[in-house]
Every structure is written in structure tokens, then in C-alpha cells.
């Protein structure tokens, strides 16, 4: 089990290194640089001043040198300084990561409860109007773009005269305020998760209906719904875990849009701004962070398979 985890972790690092190279090289081909942005409003700018500013930031060095400087820093745990703000990139990433993770985790929680609950309900009352409504709802919510749902939520809130209090505050700084700010965006993100989960849970639950052990349990006089619940949920666990793993990637994609619509200073907004400003160290660090999150989530999902099902654990050993 441990060697398995270790192997995955090393593989993950390799993948991250590939991502780092790709991002570093690719973005240098996008026209424009930070110096133009810094001098945007200046009346009189001479080419000499531009060259001087570029040299100050090390942008005049050959690309391989720049890459070496950056990657050796990263390897030593130093993500460098933002070209735009001069602040430590690690501080900026840390500050932006908190709201994004909070949104994602909250969305998974809300989505998980709603989705699994709906799936169970649909399975227990299968064929009834409850099942129909839940199935239609899950199909529809899988198709509604989060982008539109977010905008509609804002429209609806504006119509009833409710305003999400601003500015954004961290959960530790102002828990109540923070919850008011993240609950709507998290709910928008959660609906997609819930829709996917409920379909999966329902079919996993129904799979066990015809199984022998259910009939046996029946014969022993155990209440059928109790049996469905216990065995059905157990049966659903592995696919649900897998789905959560893949949903996390979708969720991170969703946060980019939702953070923008709901004005949350997360990783997506940071990435977006750093791209607009050509702030290379921040772009690279933000992308690596997204990669790292995905790798960690996948690793966690992989490891949890082993915990859930002993057979997988043995197979790996």
C-alpha cells in the first residue's frame, strides 16, 4: 500500500514537472509583457526606460536561463516574487487558495448530501412521481451551465432585493459574513455535483435490488428498505468516490467562472489577472497549484479505494 502511494506520488511529481515546462514555454509566446502594463498610463516612455524595466525584472535573459532560475527556486520551495506586485508568490497563492478550496469543499459537501439523498430517495420510491421528478431534475441540472445558473442567481437575488454583503472576508476572520458570501456560489457549484451523484447513487442502489443477499435478507425478515440502504450505499461507495474525484476537476473549472461572477478573490481570479498582466511567476505557480490539487485528490481517491474495499488493497500489495 505504501509503495503504491509512493509510486503514485513520484509519478505525480513527474507530471507536475512536465506541466511546469509546458506552461513556462507556452506563455512566453503570448504577445505583450508586464512592463507595457506597468507603464500603461505613462505619458512619455522611452525605449531605454522599457529596456531598463525589463532588465530589472530579468525578462531580458535568455529563456533557458530564466527557466533555470525559476525552476531551481521552485525546487527549493521558493516560488519567486510577482512581477506585478513584488509580493511573494507563495503568499498570493496561499491567500487565493483558501477561498477556492472552501468553495470546492463546501460544494462537494452540499452536493454530496443533496445528491446521495436524492439518489437514495429515487431508488426507494422508484417508479413513483418522486423518482420521476428527481430524475428529471438531475438530468436538467447536469445540463444547466454554471455560468448561467450563477447569473440567474444574481438576477433573482437582485429582484428580491437581497445583497450579498461585501467585501469578501475569510472564514476565520468573519465566519458568519463569510458563509453568507460563499453559500450562493457554493450552491450553484453543488447542483452540478448533486445531479451527477444522484444518478449514480440511484443506479448503484437498484443494482442490488435483484441480488441474492437481498432476497436472503428478505427471507430473514429484515425490513427491505433497511437492507437496500445498507447494501445499496455500500455498493455505491466505489463509483461515488471515483465520481467525486473526477467531479473535483470540473468543480475547479467551475470556480474560475463562479469566482468571477460572485467576486470571490480565489485562485481562478488570481490566474485570470496574472494572465492579463503577463505576471509569469504567478501564472506558473497558479497552474502548478491546480495541478497539485488534482494530483492530491486523485491520490486520495486511489488510497480510499483500498480502505473501502480490502480486495483492492490486497491486489495492490
Amino acid at each position, binding site marked *: 500500500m505504501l509503495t503504491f502511494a509512493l509510486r503514485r506520488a513520484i*509519478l505525480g511529481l*513527474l*507530471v*507536475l514537472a*512536465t*506541466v511546469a515546462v*509546458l*506552461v513556462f514555454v*507556452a*506563455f512566453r*509566446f*503570448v504577445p505583450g509583457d508586464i512592463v507595457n502594463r506597468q507603464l500603461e498610463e505613462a505619458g512619455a516612455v522611452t525605449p531605454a526606460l522599457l529596456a531598463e524595466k525589463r532588465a530589472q525584472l530579468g525578462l531580458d535573459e535568455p529563456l533557458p536561463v530564466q527557466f533555470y532560475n525559476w525552476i531551481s527556486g521552485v525546487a527549493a520551495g521558493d516560488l519567486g516574487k510577482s512581477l506585478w506586485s513584488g509580493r511573494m508568490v507563495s503568499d498570493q497563492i496561499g491567500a487565493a487558495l483558501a477561498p477556492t478550496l472552501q468553495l470546492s469543499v463546501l460544494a462537494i459537501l452540499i452536493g454530496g448530501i443533496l445528491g446521495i439523498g436524492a439518489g437514495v430517495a429515487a431508488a426507494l420510491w422508484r417508479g413513483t412521481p418522486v423518482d420521476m421528478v428527481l430524475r428529471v431534475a438531475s*438530468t*436538467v441540472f*447536469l*445540463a*444547466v*451551465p454554471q*455560468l*448561467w445558473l450563477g*447569473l*440567474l442567481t*444574481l*438576477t433573482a437575488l*437582485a*429582484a428580491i432585493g437581497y445583497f450579498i454583503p461585501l467585501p469578501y472576508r475569510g472564514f476565520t476572520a468573519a465566519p458568519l459574513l463569510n458563509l453568507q458570501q460563499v453559500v450562493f456560489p457554493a450552491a450553484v457549484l453543488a447542483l452540478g455535483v448533486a445531479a451527477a451523484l444522484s444518478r449514480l447513487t440511484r443506479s448503484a442502489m437498484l443494482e442490488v435490488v435483484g441480488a441474492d443477499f437481498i432476497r436472503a435478507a428478505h427471507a430473514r425478515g429484515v425490513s427491505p428498505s433497511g437492507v437496500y440502504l445498507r447494501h445499496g450505499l455500500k455498493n455505491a461507495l466505489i463509483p461515488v468516490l471515483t465520481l467525486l474525484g473526477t467531479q473535483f*476537476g*470540473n468543480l*475547479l*473549472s*467551475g470556480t*474560475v*467562472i463562479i469566482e*468571477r*461572477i460572485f467576486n470571490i478573490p480565489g485562485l*481562478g481570479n488570481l*490566474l*485570470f489577472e496574472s*494572465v492579463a498582466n503577463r505576471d509569469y511567476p504567478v501564472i506558473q505557480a497558479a*497552474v502548478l497549484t*491546480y*495541478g497539485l490539487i*488534482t*494530483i492530491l485528490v486523485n491520490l486520495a481517491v486511489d488510497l480510499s479505494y483500498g480502505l473501502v474495499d480490502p480486495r483492492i488493497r490486497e491486489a495492490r500489495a
Partner: protein
Amino acid sequence: MSTTNLSEETLARRESRTLAVLRGIMHEPVGLIALLVLVAVILLALFAPLIAQYDPLFQDRRAVLRAPDVVHWFGTDDIGRDVLSRVLHGTRISLFVGLMVVAITMLVGGIIGLISGFFGGWIDMVIQRVVEALDTLPSLILSLFIAALLGPSVRNVIIAVAMAQIPRFVRVVRSEVLKIRAYDFMSAARVLGASPWRIILTHCAPNVMPTMLVMGSLTFGVAIMTEAALSFLGVGTPPPNPSLGTMLSQGTRFIGTAPWLIVFPGLMLTISVLVLNLMGDVLRDVLDPRNR
């Protein structure tokens, strides 16, 4: 000899499968409705230039931000363009982008996946590392990057969205090929001295086709949504083309005052994705061997 027999068999199987798909769709009321709506959406998109009452680019500067009425069913935007016409043309662009993305993804992802799975070795190794690297980034962020790199145009949006979907295809096709490779008829073909490309084309490709079709149909909706998201973020379909995502982005400024700018493009987007997903579901039910 036996290879020809085999491919005839596959051919026959494919025909019966197409029938089965149609039968499957007809039997499920939801599938039938979805099919009808999808056909309607496709017809609307195809014949948008004929159906639309106005030029989607024409600015009627005396009719700005008109609420929906009999003249402009979906109202007009902030420089007097007819929203209904723009929604129709926008659907056309969305479906076109989606279709191209699906085609490119299936073709490129399929070929790379077949090669990776069939040959194995260092080719497989290199392909898998690149696929993993691309797969590490959330798809929208990957698309966002590629779109920012290439600059906004319809062609670039297609490339950007497809690039983010290809890794998933490669992985699935590869694993399917690995499964097929173990089958007897494959080793038989190899013993008979068929060239690797011939084996790939005659044996592997037809067998991974159902999986690819299911994945492709489900990618369609994802592609349309990603295109909208990219356009919303300003790196997608460039103006003045009416993309549904661009229209949403344009409408955000009028959220409290002209909701029709948000409601109609979003509704069309949702309906398109919804019916495409439903069709994908039906296709999966019929084609997926586990469901047969």
C-alpha cells in the same frame, strides 16, 4: 480469409447496432422527445439564416434594449440587434464548435489512443506522460490557456476545447485496445502476418467505436458549455459573431434592467446541452456492452 469474414461480421454487427440504437430511442419516450427537440434545434441552427427575421449583426439603432414584443420576440440588445436572430445564429456557432470538437477529439484522441494501446513500449510511455500532464489541469483552465495562447477566433476555440478533451479519449481508447489485444482473434490475425496498421484499422478501431461514440456524444454538451465559458471570459468566439457565451457576457451588464439578454441565450444553451446529454445517455444504454 478469416480476417475478411471477421470484418464482414463486424460490419453486420454495426448495422444491427444502428438499428438497435434507433429502436432504443423510439422505445423510450424521453429518448423520443429528446430526439425530436435535438432535430428541431439542429434544424433551427442549420436554417438560422432563413428562419431568423433579422440579420444578427444588423444594428437597429432606433430600437435599443427593447423588451420582448411582437416585433422582436426576444427583445433587442444594447445596440439594437435582434436577440432572437442572435440566439439562432449563436446556436449555429455553438453546435458547429461542438461538432468540430467532437470530430477532432474522436479522430485525434482515437488515433493516439489506438497507437498508444497497440504499440505499447516507449511510444505508449511518452504519450501517457503527456496525457497525464494535460489531464492534471482542470479542463476549463487548460482550454483557457490554449485560447489565451492562440487568441480569440472560432478556429482557436475549437482547438482549445478539443485539446482539453483529447486526454480523456486517449486514456479510454487505450484501455479498450489493451482489453481487445488480449482476444484470440487478434493473436490469430497477428500470426497470420497482418500488418499492425491493418490490425488497428480492421480489428481495434471497430471495436472501440461504440465507446468512442458514447464518449463523443457526451463531449458534445461539454464542448458547448466550454465554448460559452471561454466566450464569457473574453477569450472565445470574437465579436461581432453572436455566440451564446458572448451574449451572456454582454448581458451581465444589464442583469437588473434587461434580463432577456441573459435568459434567452442561457435557455437555448441549456436546452441544447440537455438534449445532447439525453441522446448520449440513450446511446450509452444501447451501445454499452454492460447494458446489453
